[in-house]
């Protein structure tokens, strides 16, 4: 096997809060080969952004030192991620909070390029205009000199996608990067990313709530629930025949499949009060006493893995 681009093993992250220690991530494992694309889905608050932040070494202040292993291109990231700065592009979840309002958007990105990309400022400007064009910003050359507030919400999101790609990263980590885009613009962006994956072997780690985007872009998917991997496998297989009861219920909410606005009963547990055993058991229609007693292991079955021994039982 070739060396994975990104390998995460046994990752655990906890935060000190007023209500005690919050175990946000627990024993998370995933790998991405060069040119591979992994989508991460899961209910709001389940730890997706925290996973990305742990990989990037930008956890919030109250975080304990994460345990486990994170390796990028064979080298350790947990001890410090500075060496990988230019090689990993990151699109954060909130474009509003990620751009400094008092500097021109172009200057902010050019500054990142100056530190991490080879070439002169003129080269960088030329390259950035090309990227602005590729992410469908109107008048790409003029966009360089505008301030963040002069862009619309979706335009700011595309600025950040361009910024993340500016240093030719080997891995792009993106947190819900197309939520502010209409579907025709989104389609162009997904097309661009697919080309970069195919032509340059860009690796993708992509958090999304949109199963259509997931199906279009990612070859594998990890389903996270309450900080743990519930299910992992090729996107096609997981979407066609979801195994974990949580995945099944989540997919049943999709407008293509749902007839009502039902949703999954109950809410994601607070990270300071994780249920015993399987963390999904209080909401699971298949739960049995054993589910509350011991946490289920992640069973590997061919290319797929699922953390539920009752994954073959249909809903009654």
């Amino acid at each position, binding site marked *: 096997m070739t060396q994975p681009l990104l390998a995460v093993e046994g990752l655990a992250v906890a935060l000190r*809060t*007023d*209500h005690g220690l919050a175990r946000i991530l627990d024993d998370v494992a995933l790998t991405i080969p060069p040119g591979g694309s992994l989508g991460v*889905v*899961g*209910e*709001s*608050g389940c730890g*997706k*952004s925290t996973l990305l932040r742990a990989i990037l070494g930008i956890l*919030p202040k109250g975080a304990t030192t994460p345990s486990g292993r994170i390796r990028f291109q064979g080298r350790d990231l947990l001890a410090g991620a500075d060496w990988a700065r230019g090689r990993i592009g990151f699109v954060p*979840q*909130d*474009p*509003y*909070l990620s751009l400094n309002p008092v500097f021109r958007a172009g200057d902010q990105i050019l500054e990142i390029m100056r530190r991490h990309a080879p070439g002169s400022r003129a080269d960088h400007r030329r390259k950035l205009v090309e990227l602005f064009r590729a992410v*469908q*910003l*109107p*008048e790409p050359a*003029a966009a360089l000199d505008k301030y963040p507030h*002069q*862009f*619309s*919400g*979706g*335009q700011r999101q*595309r600025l950040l996608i361009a910024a993340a790609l500016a240093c030719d990263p080997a891995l792009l980590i993106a*947190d*819900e990067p197309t*939520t*502010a*885009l*209409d*579907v*025709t*613009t*989104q*389609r162009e962006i997904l097309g661009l990313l697919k080309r970069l994956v195919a032509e340059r072997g860009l690796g993708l780690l992509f958090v999304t*709530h949109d*199963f*259509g*985007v997931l*199906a*279009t872009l990612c070859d594998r998917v990890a389903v996270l629930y309450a900080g743990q991997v519930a299910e992992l496998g090729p*996107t*096609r297989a997981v*979407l066609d025949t979801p195994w974990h009861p949580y995945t099944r219920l*989540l997919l049943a*909410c*999709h*407008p*293509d*499949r*749902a007839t009502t*606005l039902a*949703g*999954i009963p109950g*809410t994601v547990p*607070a990270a300071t009060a994780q249920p015993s055993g399987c963390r999904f058991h209080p909401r699971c229609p298949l739960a049995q006493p054993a589910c509350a007693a011991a946490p289920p292991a992640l069973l590997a079955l061919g290319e797929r893995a699922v953390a539920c021994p009752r994954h073959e039982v249909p809903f009654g």
Partner: protein
Amino acid sequence: MRCRLAELLTAQDLVVELGRDRLRAVDGVSLSIAAGETFGLVGESGCGKTTLARALLGLQGVAAGRITLAGATVTATGRAGRAAVQYVHQDPGAALDPWWRIGATLAEGLTIHGVTDRAEQQARIAEMLAAVGLDPALGARFPHELSGGQQRRIGIARILLLRPRLVILDEPTAGLDLSVQAAVLRLLAALRDRFGLTYLLISHDLGVVRRVCDRIAVMYLGRIVETGAAASLFAAPRHPYTRALLAAAPHLDGRESAAPPLSGDPPSLRAIPGGCRFHPRCPIAIPVCATTAPAVENVTAGHQVACHRWQEESPHA
């Protein structure tokens, strides 16, 4: 379908110019929202939806046109009398004060709107947090201690607490997982029925718009190009841009959309095309499209479109 009720908010020939070079981000928009309905606004990123919303809210001066609220003209400036119209911000992080605990931000909103009794404040806040699917204990946290979806739900709760008559929701479900999204949409519907609210819902999620809106307006480069009942607009879109939009949604099975992507560069406010603004990217444009702006025509009584060729093409996307 709901029957037509009294008009709550109307805009006539609204024009909004932005920045020193006075770019026309909204250029002659007319719309009318009936009391009690959910009115959807969709369109390309950057076409002027948020700018239109800010103008309706009185947060953005208008260069021309008229806005009425419950029959009375509201002046182009000043927020007086506008407490009845509230806005749920597109960027959840922008609406919350980073230095204040969530509960304090929510209570402050109530205080400003005249609810000063501490016990009543706390009761309303707890009820609203539960309604948006959040643990009331989250009130003790700071905004940065919340996930993106939690922040967005706080943004919705903050506004609904004030019980306005009309709420402009700018991308209220962006970044929410399907389960929470369903819960938020259920909540919005329940509050609408309970408090007689009216919604203007801006969204890129056509699945959401289709399920919750009574009527929809489609915007392209500062203008409304098609308006109609949600059912008829989705079943038989008439404008080529509407059709392109409906055809571009990604599918659950991962298959590529059969329709070709929109050709041409994204439009710029600095160089607005003459004639029909969509003509450089329109797959069915004819010479007249480049020279003459199409008038708004009735497809049926409740369905309007601005396109020279709406009658000639099969309405099915």
